[in-house]
């Protein structure tokens, strides 16, 4: 626990009909800290992220981002809070009606009211930051490979120099080499910005590389939370099974019912 966490979740609950997805999430992220939330499919990782971002309304509990309460917040307060955040989506979620530089510059033009010309120059710099050349600036996102789309998505996320970054499954769907390149870029960008970060992943190699701390979510609760260096020596049987990737163990996986 830190005195002034960038993000603080307390007893966060979220249900969809009778299905209780989050059942009391508690989590703190300190300034400049990178936390990876790991867990199996359907355990509530993405729902946690969406609740923090205000894309879903938590049923109960408290979510403080930069000290602002996001549960029940007005739209304008959410927009103000989100203007200091950046998000890399699992599918990159690039706007296909715009070219690459317009995607990267979107937050600058619409959110920060920067002129198109100035925003274009910044977009080109961010493009270089993620290792892409100016020749792709005018291309449509649909013509890019998955790895390039992720890099453009990362460039868009960091374009406004946010204080907090969110990464949703950043290496999913990429080959191991491209996955590692994305991991390195995430580490570099987060470090350069001095930003706090939350990464949702079930890729342990990615979590170990990106994060300072790892939190494991299972059945809607954080069941283990500790430094990356402690993960291999932890005696939590759920965490041990997940890290080892064993089928046998205390985790009630959907696989068992097949």
């Amino acid at each position, binding site marked *: 626990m830190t005195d002034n966490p960038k993000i603080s979740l307390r007893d966060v609950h979220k249900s969809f009909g009778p299905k209780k997805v989050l059942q009391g999430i508690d989590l703190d992220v300190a300034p400049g800290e990178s936390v990876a939330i790991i867990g199996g499919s359907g355990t509530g990782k993405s729902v946690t992220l*969406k609740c923090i971002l205000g894309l879903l309304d938590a049923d109960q509990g408290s979510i403080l981002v930069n000290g602002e309460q996001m549960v029940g917040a007005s739209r304008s307060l959410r*927009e103000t809070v989100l203007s200091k*955040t950046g998000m890399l989506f699992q599918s990159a*979620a690039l706007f*296909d*009606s715009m070219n690459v530089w317009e995607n990267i510059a979107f*937050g600058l033009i*619409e959110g920060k009211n920067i002129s198109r010309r100035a925003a274009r120059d910044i977009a080109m710099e961010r493009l270089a930051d993620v290792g892409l050349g100016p020749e792709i600036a005018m291309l449509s996102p649909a013509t890019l490979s998955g790895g390039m789309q992720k890099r453009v998505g990362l460039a868009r996320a960091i374009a406004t120099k946010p204080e907090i970054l969110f990464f949703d499954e950043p290496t999913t769907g990429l080959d191991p080499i491209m996955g590692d390149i994305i991991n390195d870029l995430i580490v570099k960008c987060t470090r350069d910005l001095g930003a706090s970060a939350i990464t949702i992943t079930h890729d342990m190699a990615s979590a170990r590389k990106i994060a300072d701390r790892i939190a494991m979510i299972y059945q809607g609760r954080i069941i283990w939370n500790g430094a990356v260096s402690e993960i291999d020596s932890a005696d939590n049987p759920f965490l041990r099974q997940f890290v080892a990737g064993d089928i046998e163990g205390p985790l009630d996986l959907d696989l068992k019912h097949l």
Partner: protein
Amino acid sequence: MPIFAPVGRMFLAFFAVVGRVTVFAVKTVGHCVTPRFYFRLIFKQMCEIGYFSLPVVAMTTLFAGMVLALQSYSGFSRFSAESAVATVVVISMTRELGPVLAGLMVAGRVGAAIAAEIGTMRVTEQIDALVTLSTNPFKYLVVPRVLAGLLTLPLLVFIGDIIGVLGGYIVGVHKLDFNSGSYIKNTFEYLEVLDVVSGLVKASVFGFIITLMGCYHGYHSKGGAHGVGQATTNAVVSSSILILISNYVVTELFFTR
């Protein structure tokens, strides 16, 4: 009684949808009258909805006017009222056929495109991305389309009316051997401003309905490609039905004394 349960469920589901559409419409109108306005996007959508729908509306109204002239001539000639053909064509086009045919054609072309585009943005998380970039998706996606529909459909219908009347003139003069001057005189002699205005008001209402339904079904689509396909179908079907219903309501408001 087992038969009442599914019927009751159906009614409840229907009223739930009506409620959701109403809330969506109220939210949309609220955002339409409060800043921020994306004028560049409104203009782009006006081109998309108005300018690019012009060929299909022109073809539809041209042939509708031509058929109307032929049909009314063959009908009215039975009691020697052929001279009423021009009047029937212009009043039918301006009051009913222009707005309804243009509305239905635009519903098929634009309503489907809006639902597919916004639906794809929803299922590929592009709408969530807009939110994380502190942009209100209602103001950015819905309002420009609805305002563009509201403003351009009357223009489109006005042009469609002229083309429809021209279609009637072509058939009347070149096929049915009406005198050109007397056909034009008959066209304008009994035409009232209210005939044209009522059609343009209808067009505006239809524009609102088409874009609102496209945005609503796209915005709430889920389940990948199948969901987007479903949203597209629902947008076209619901807007077509609502066009016909609202057409009656507006006609009743204008012409019932």
